[in-house]
């Protein structure tokens, strides 16, 4: 897996070549800022659904090419937090927020940022696998097609193949690319969704409990995949499963009742939690 990744120039060039085209919409900050270690900076984020406040003053730095895990019990606001990072919440009626979210130093909620082009840079994988009920090939080709990311059919074929390989699904589906995606198993469907997200070459992949609907075997495959992906791009993972957080996370944020309780590097936060609540959650006493 790692070996062939190095051969594929398409993806090695990806962040630069894709962001070059985005300079028009104010998303490309290359040159104007030094490439810092921090890719996404969340500062003072409050979020509301109507009158109900679900996030309180979250400030968080997400590092480039690492796995940042947001963990916490159900209903703590972790999904809301991750969905503000690519503006998926724009679609939710009644959602509002204040505070600032910067991608490469640029506020993603500022008026000159096109939410469509933002989603090319920040991809997303959902909790329940949601493949489109069309062929496996067309699922992966969907993003490149709508954004016209290729000139020839062969280029698209290559994007599809590479994306499926990166998602560790190629060997299982290479002989039936034209089969309907719904014929895949749950774990395969989720990896297809990852491949679909990878096909537009995002810099950040947001994963909202990607393995919570899967069996243990598929879960460990997804976890391996997350660790591999972090070599190429930035992964933000939401999970309520702290074993999973410990296995894949470089940095872990613990969210409780809409507040960021603790944020730290992976082994440390589990071994020596500074906060009482974190300790209770990590030891399984807080649900």
């Amino acid at each position: 897996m790692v070996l062939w990744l190095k051969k594929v120039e398409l993806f090695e060039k990806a962040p630069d070549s894709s962001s070059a085209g985005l300079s028009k919409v104010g998303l490309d900050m290359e040159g104007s800022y030094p490439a810092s270690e921090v890719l996404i900076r969340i500062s003072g984020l409050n979020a509301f659904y109507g009158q109900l406040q679900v996030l309180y003053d979250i400030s968080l730095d997400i590092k480039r090419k690492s796995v940042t895990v947001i963990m916490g019990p159900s209903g703590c606001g972790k999904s809301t937090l991750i969905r503000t990072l690519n503006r998926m919440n724009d679609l939710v009626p009644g959602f509002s927020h204040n505070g600032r979210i910067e991608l490469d130093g640029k506020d993603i909620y500022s008026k000159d940022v096109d939410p469509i082009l933002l989603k090319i840079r920040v991809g997303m994988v959902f909790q329940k696998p949601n493949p489109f009920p069309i062929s496996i090939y067309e699922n992966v080709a969907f993003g490149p097609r709508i954004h016209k990311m290729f000139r020839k059919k062969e280029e698209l074929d290559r994007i599809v193949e590479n994306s499926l390989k990166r998602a560790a699904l190629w060997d299982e589906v290479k002989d039936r690319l034209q089969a309907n995606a719904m014929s895949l198993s749950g774990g395969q469907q989720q990896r297809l969704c990852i491949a679909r997200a990878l096909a537009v070459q995002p810099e950040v992949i947001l994963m909202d409990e990607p393995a919570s609907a899967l069996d243990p075997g598929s879960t460990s495959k997804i976890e391996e995949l997350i660790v591999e992906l972090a070599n190429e791009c930035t992964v933000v993972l939401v999970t309520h499963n702290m074993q999973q957080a410990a296995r894949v996370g470089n940095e872990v944020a613990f969210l409780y009742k809409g507040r960021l309780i603790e944020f730290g590097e992976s082994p440390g936060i589990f071994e020596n939690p500074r906060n009482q609540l974190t300790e209770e959650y990590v030891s399984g006493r807080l649900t």
Partner: protein
Amino acid sequence: MMPEETETVQQTRAPFPWRDKRIARNNRIRKLKWRIIAFLAVLSVIVVLYPLLDMLYLFAYKGLTLISLARLTQTTTGGTGVGNAGLANAIAGSALIIGMSSLFAVPLGVLSGIYLAEFAGERDRYAGMVRFVSDVLAGVPSIILGYAGFFVFVLYFGWGFSAVAASLTLAILMLPYILRTTDVALRKVPDSIREGAYALGSSKTDMINRLNLRIALPGIVTGILLSISISVGETAPLLYTASFSNYLPSALFHSPVGYLTYVVWTYSQLPFAQANDLAYLAAFLLMLIVVLINLVARVGMRRFMKI
């Protein structure tokens, strides 16, 4: 079964001998009820199916014995019985009217269905009104639509009895079916799939064009075919708007058009054997068209869904 288990069962049963009797009796009654229901179900299937099959058989038999090149290529010659030669004018007229009304109704219906499902908000009062009106329209007796078509298209617009007046009237009849099936089929596309498309940076139009319409296509096509097979069988609105003609359709305006249902209706009542034969043949052709449309819809959609 394990020995301990039977022991415990016997222990609990021993003090209640009446319990077993009740259970056995209840079971007998249940079986009897089931037999009665099954009998009634089979009976009603026979009652429903027999006339249908009998009718299919009659028209298929008559149609297949009567069908000939002459009857398909010559035109009707009026009700004198001197030689009600063929159905060419009725076939051509029916095809023309159905084709033109589909041409009006399909784009309009599908587009307004897309608007209702994708662009109108949940509480859009205009959309609610459109849905209500289209449901009412679907229930309006077709003869009333024909009357309205007669007044508006034939008299007010002054198009006379004509293919255009007939097609527009039929299009109004088809519209609610196409509109509602498109609306329903599109709204069935799950939110998770819409979310997936948005997360890839899809615009709403891209999502509708490349994904939702594709997923909803079987439903939309079924609605279109259903509306066509309904309008194929319409007589009343056409009496008011197309009148009838013994000649092949020659002009779109100011020119009455023949159609198959008129032949069935009128020629079956004439005291001439040749006229009755043409009525049978026309009925057979209508039935054939409806059956074919339904077959195409079923088989085609099943194949499409498998991909």
